[in-house]
Each structure stands twice: as structure tokens, then as C-alpha cells.
């Protein structure tokens, strides 16, 4: 299991490649990757920047718990999860969930489950800065989109 928080921009594809160099790829027939970026719009407004607040200590523990529970449900999987914190600009990567498994269904299902649980449970809060300079807290994630 690997869970990481980044206060600076990170390259999700480099993280995937770095992890793959350490894995027995001949036994892992499937890799499912989700990479989420910051959009420059939300709820019909132009968004210029984002600040991602988190709960140092709990955020890391909670991501580890979510991954551990997925590993219990799908024992064959290997996971890499990364998330940004702090100031983020549009087009920068916010989140990476990569799951390797022997077969496609476990990889795909576990990737989706980890992402949805992260979005609904892990202590992160987005504050947006709009084009007119005002700031607002994001009240909820776009449900299931």
C-alpha cells in the first residue's frame, strides 16, 4: 500500500511507472488508473484557483484505512493513492488512484470504490477562488458524475 500527500504539483504517470518498477508485473494482468484534475469551472462559475485544506494525520490515516479495506475486499490488489493539498491551479492533478490486479474486474472495481470512498469520507475540503476574486467553500462533490 502506498498513500501520499503532495503540497506541490506531482506527475501521476511518473508515480505509476515508479511503482511498476517494483511490482511483479508478470502476475498483474490489469492496471486501472484514475487521475483527477482541477477544472476551471464549477457550478456555472469560472474558478481561478483552489485551496485544499486537510486534517494532517487523520487524512493520511483515513486514506490508508480506505485502501486497507479495499485490500481486504479484493485481496489480490496492489494500490497507489496520491492527493494534492494546499494551493492548486487549474489543470493540475488533484488525485491519483492506481490499482493493479491479476484480472480486470478487481482492478477496475477497487479503483472506483477507493475513489468514491475517498471523495465521501477522507477529510479534504475545497475552497475556490472565482474570477471576481471572491472565495467560497465547495459544499459538496458532484454526485456520481
Amino acid at each position, binding site marked *: 500500500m502506498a498513500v501520499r500527500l503532495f503540497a506541490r504539483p506531482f506527475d501521476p504517470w511518473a508515480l505509476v511507472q515508479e511503482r511498476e518498477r517494483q511490482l511483479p508485473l508478470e502476475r498483474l494482468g490489469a492496471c486501472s488508473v484514475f487521475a483527477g484534475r482541477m477544472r476551471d469551472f464549477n457550478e456555472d462559475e469560472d474558478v481561478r484557483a483552489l485551496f485544499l485544506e486537510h486534517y494532517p494525520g487523520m487524512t493520511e490515516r483515513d486514506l490508508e484505512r480506505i485502501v486497507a479495506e479495499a485490500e481486504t475486499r479484493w485481496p489480490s490488489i496492489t494500490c497507489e493513492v496520491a492527493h494534492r493539498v494546499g494551493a492548486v491551479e487549474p489543470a493540475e492533478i488533484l488525485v491519483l488512484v492506481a490499482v493493479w490486479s491479476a484480472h480486470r474486474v478487481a482492478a477496475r472495481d477497487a479503483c472506483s470504490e477507493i475513489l468514491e470512498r475517498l471523495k465521501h469520507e477522507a477529510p479534504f475540503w475545497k475552497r475556490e477562488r472565482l474570477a471576481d476574486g471572491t472565495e467560497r*467553500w465547495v459544499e*459538496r462533490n458532484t454526485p456520481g458524475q
Partner: protein
Amino acid sequence: MCRGRQVTITVLYFARLREDVGRERDEVASTGDVQTVGDVWRGLHGEPPARLMAAVNQAHARLDTPVADGDEVAFFPPVTGG
């Protein structure tokens, strides 16, 4: 029960809730009146708002989760990561 020293529960607030409360932490004396996460909130702020989330010692909790001396209790609004 606390060997002569004042034992407290540390209360943390995050995101919009921290701005609404106007500070990032409180210290609450651990007394017999404070048995649960909900008691901690009510003792400081009255009735809990809808969709209040909480953690005890950095694990998700509910308003009826018990609290004890020295615990770190956190309150926060619905999460919006990912």
C-alpha cells in the same frame, strides 16, 4: 479520577466550520457531563447543525461516539476531496 490534574478534551474545527466558530480549537474540561461527541458540541455551541461530521482521535465518529480524557475531537463540514 484524574489524579489531581485538570484533564481536557481537545476540540478542533476545520474548513467552513472553523470560520463559523471563529477559532481553530477549544479545550473542554472532561467531566461527567461530557460522555459523547454530541455532548462536546452541545456544551460549546448548542444544537449540532445538520450534516456535521466528527472524528475522535483521527477516526470517523458519530454524535453518540463516547469520548474520554485526553481525546482529540474534531468537527468538520461534509468533505469535498478528490
